[in-house]
């Protein structure tokens, strides 16, 4: 808009300056020619922006030669004004272009290239800051992981962080005083029921949502549950007492261990690259049978053995298994008809692998020098 205003202003000045004299067409055109030749030859000599500016004022300025020439059109006979005026205008345009080109050239901005002079840019100086924020790497990992499963038809749901013992353990086939409870050291809420038991704890895994989901809907089920989980555990480079887990569950009539393998292998490839192979070994979780631990071949050393994979060539990424018939029965699904698989993985662990972070404590130290490394 500003540009438009300036243009209008210049035009009005030009109109105001019309003078009324007379002159013949030939001498007018000759004058035009002379101005052009002189101007062009002068321009080649000009080596500074100051000289260029004088050249411009001399020709195109308010009292410049060409400006005068244009004013002189009115002195011509009426029938030749049109042709002369057209030529004068195209000369003005041509010289203005030459001026611009030469200016760019002198400013070192020419596409032809220039000797580095005082006016050239230091292209190594930083560009102007674009301020950016960052997602926490855990959030970023959760999103990336969930997107993969979403594309496979899983729905993202969330659940309570303070859970009932019933859901965190009992309905997952982990009765009271079961030694498997040692796998999940718990932080208990200070609430005691009349029978002396503590009903509430900070959930030690996202698996209770398997139960809550199945209790609230009929099969087929495909859900992914990201969320914070808590363990009563000393922290070190690979253990945090608070971390984010991502649970998954698929239940239907014909879901098999082969589907578990296929789905989780596909996940591993989408997160860690097409070449990745997944490996499944027998493992134990009370709420699945058969149970498995899923590893991928090391993306760092391609399976040769390195620091990342602890020289084994394989990296554990999650636990999984076929939903235990007792768990299905408990939520009212007939295990003779329905079967399914479930898995759980740590979001921070996936993020650590992807970014090469070797200490999980970084995630909750929230040092901005750490956080700012994970721009989107």
């Amino acid at each position: 808009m500003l540009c438009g205003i300036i243009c209008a202003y210049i035009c009005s000045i030009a109109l105001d300056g019309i003078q009324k004299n007379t002159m013949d067409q030939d001498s007018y055109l000759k004058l035009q020619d002379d101005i052009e030749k002189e101007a062009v030859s002068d321009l080649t000599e000009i080596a500074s922006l100051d000289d260029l500016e004088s050249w411009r004022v001399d020709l195109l300025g308010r009292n410049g030669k060409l400006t005068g020439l244009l004013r002189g059109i009115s002195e011509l006979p009426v029938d030749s004004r049109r042709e002369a005026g057209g030529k004068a205008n195209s000369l003005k345009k041509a010289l203005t272009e030459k001026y611009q080109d030469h200016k760019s050239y002198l400013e070192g901005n020419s596409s032809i290239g220039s000797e580095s002079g005082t006016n050239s840019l230091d292209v190594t100086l930083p560009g102007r800051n674009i301020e950016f924020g960052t997602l926490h790497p855990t959030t970023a990992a959760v999103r990336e992981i969930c997107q993969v499963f979403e594309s496979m038809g899983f729905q993202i749901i969330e659940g309570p962080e303070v859970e009932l013992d019933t859901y965190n353990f009992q309905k997952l086939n982990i009765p009271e005083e079961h030694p498997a409870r040692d796998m999940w050291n718990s932080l208990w809420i200070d609430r005691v029921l009349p029978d002396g038991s503590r009903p509430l704890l900070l959930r030690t895994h996202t698996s209770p949502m398997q139960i809550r989901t199945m209790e609230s809907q009929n099969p087929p089920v495909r859900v992914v549950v990201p969320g914070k989980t808590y363990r009563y555990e000393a922290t070190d480079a690979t253990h945090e007492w608070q971390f984010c887990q991502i649970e998954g569950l698929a239940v239907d009539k014909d879901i098999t261990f082969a589907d578990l393998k296929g789905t989780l292998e596909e996940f591993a490839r989408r997160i860690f690259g097409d070449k990745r192979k997944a490996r499944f070994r027998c493992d134990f979780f009370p709420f699945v049978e058969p149970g498995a631990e899923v590893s991928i071949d090391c993306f760092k050393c391609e399976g040769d053995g390195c620091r990342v994979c602890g020289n084994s060539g394989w990296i554990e990424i999650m636990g999984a298994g076929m939903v235990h018939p007792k768990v299905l029965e408990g939520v009212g699904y007939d295990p003779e008809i329905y079967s399914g698989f479930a898995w759980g993985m740590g979001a921070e662990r996936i993020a650590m692998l992807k970014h090469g972070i070797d200490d999980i404590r970084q995630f909750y130290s929230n040092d901005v020098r750490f956080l700012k490394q994970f721009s989107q």
Partner: protein
Amino acid sequence: MKIPISWLREYVEIEDEISELAHSLTMAGLEVGSVEHIGDHWDPDSLVVAEVIELIQHPDADRLRLPTLDLGDGEKATVVCGAPNLDIGQKIIFAKEGANLFNPRSGKNEILKGAKIRGVESRGMVCSALELGMGEDDGGILVLDPSTPIGVSAKELLSDSIIETELTPNRPDCLSILGTAYEVAALTGKKVNEPESSYDCGEFHIADKVKVTVQDARNCPRYTGSFIENVTIEPSPMWLQDSLTKSGQRPINNVVDITNYVMLEYGQPLHAFDFDKLDGKEVIVRQASNDEALETLDSQQRTLKPPMLVIADTSRSIGLAGIMGGTNTEIDETTTNIFLEAANFDAANTRSTRTALGLNTEASYRFERAIRHELAPLALKRATYLIKEICGGIPAEGIIDTFTSLSDPASIEITEKRFEKILGISVPMKSVWEILENLGFEKVEPDVDIVINVIPPIWRSDISIQDDVIEEYARIYGYDNLPTSSLASSIPPQIAQTGQIVREHLRDKLVSAGMNETISYSTTDLETINLFKTLPVSSDAIEIANPMDSSRSFLRPALLPNLLETLARNRRIEQQNGLKLFEIGRVFHPLQTDTADSMPLEKEEIAGAITGPNSSANLWENSERLMDFYDAKGIVEHMFLGLSGNLSFVETEREIYEKGKVADIYLGKSLIGQVGELGQGLREFYDFTSNPVIVFHLDLEEIKIATSIQSADYSEPSRYPSSFRDLALIASNDVNAESIVKTIVKNKLVSDSFPIDKYEGEEVPGGKHSITVRVIFQSDEKTLSAKEIDRSHNQIVKSLEHQYGITERYS
């Protein structure tokens, strides 16, 4: 569990490399955490068995002696030795010059060199277990079994590998060498050789010697015992000590070592009582009485209570059942008659007792994992056999066994159909049976192919349903050998999670506004709760019974304190740059009801905090500006772009904020939070003394109700140019910018208007402020003429004057 390969080989043939074996075991579910090799760096020529044939005192040192050693083939050597346990006739390991040994002084493996020690030349040395890398005890030299032949290399005699297995809680059977041997056998198609356990007994019956009464059969389903008289207590033979040492157990005496050895062998804990120390020749298994005292073998006084289970005689408790024996009946060097126990104790009761007493032992570890009662008599007979062989003595005829059930062992029906349903592959029952047989399963009816009833091996307590059997097949067959497919079942209908969508929109907006996301611990302490008064009554806060530490003993009722803590920590690290942090997370409010299944109220909140310069120092920005209220407000406004509902800010007063510098934020009619400058008190508390800190906190639950993603409604842009005028206005202080703009935009030629400058200088009269507002004029119908704009301008000035007494600054 530490498994010495030499011990494992006694029961099963191992042809594979140890690393391959470890891999197979791991893949099948018995994870091998590490493999340790003993003697793999030993040179067979420089470390050999020798006999001490002469022993004289060092002429110049009281503590040193000069043994002469027979190295075999007529070769002899005399060296200097400081070990107090060296004696003539002993078989020892002799290290020649050049041997590679562990030097306890430097903590490294070194090559042995000859040296003069107090004037006596010593070319070689007599080795301790530590120097050989076989044990930790450096009490003296390693004394070998007297029958060891002279001249044999140490490598041939002593080298070994030890695998350390990491057990899942369902496999107590693998807390034993035999259980591991069955696992190896199943994986490699070998057979297991059961250890010898039949013995000749004396001409007296156990029933005449001792009586056993189980008063609590639920907590002690089976109790077996044997009686051995006239044993000799002494140190165990070398091989026994060696096996225990390699498995991480300390040898004590022959009888105790045998109970430990058989526990490791079978996975069945045993306990030997000094029978002569028992009162009344009767063993009673009963619950402890209230405050019953017992000194356990670790010399600790224990105070017991029901339903803890004890082993007792007629007058007192003599052991904590399934956990640890008592000192009152401990085996010592004077013991001659032994009552040996191998029993089965209830898993849950054992676990709750050991938890209550804080006494976790090898025995309790096994019992709480529910080992099979069938192991008790097997282990008892094996240990009785070994005691007779090693400690002398005569076992009584018969054993005590309280188990009376005669029912058949539970069988499991398996079908091809179920295998296919779970594994996704049709498996011939014949191949299933091959694997199950190797694992030790038995068939109820032989020669039936389609449906088989199988009985799990007696050492396995983790197989009770068909799917458990399917896992057995799958893990031995190899999970990686099973097929892979992609999910073909129908995709369930998806329910729009609008709350999640709004939250993630807000999170993205915060990031695009230059904010860094943080995630803090979900806990806080009482001091912080009181400081922020985030709960009406601080006793409503939800306390953790066993917190990680006192600063994390409550669930946070608000997000902001944690964010400020994070901000303060970063402020200490990074002084020069501005900080813009936010967190989105749950807060926890008290239970609304008081029933057994009541849960706390969990709500999501958003908190943000900014402080310091608006941008980090750089070449292009020549003026640094401290961030203020309007930066924070701008971020909040930015967050809600793309969401439905109108955002408005109303001046307010709130506890933690600086007076006059805080606004309530409304989304439509819902109060969703506050934005403002942190009050002086909290700034000092967190040591933010230099720059203002501006914070906002938003109730995400309210937001989720009040708004949703809004798709923009298109309106056609005007085809005609707009023009603008800037109005410099002087208004009294009680007229705010929003009122002025609202009045201006009422004019029909005005398409937009917004403040562009705020001035509070000397030229502005007291009680007034000056604000410059840009007014954009535009019409959808034509290009506006200067006259029309002038007319509008005048109308605006008049209505501002009329409504608020506002004047133009330059009129």
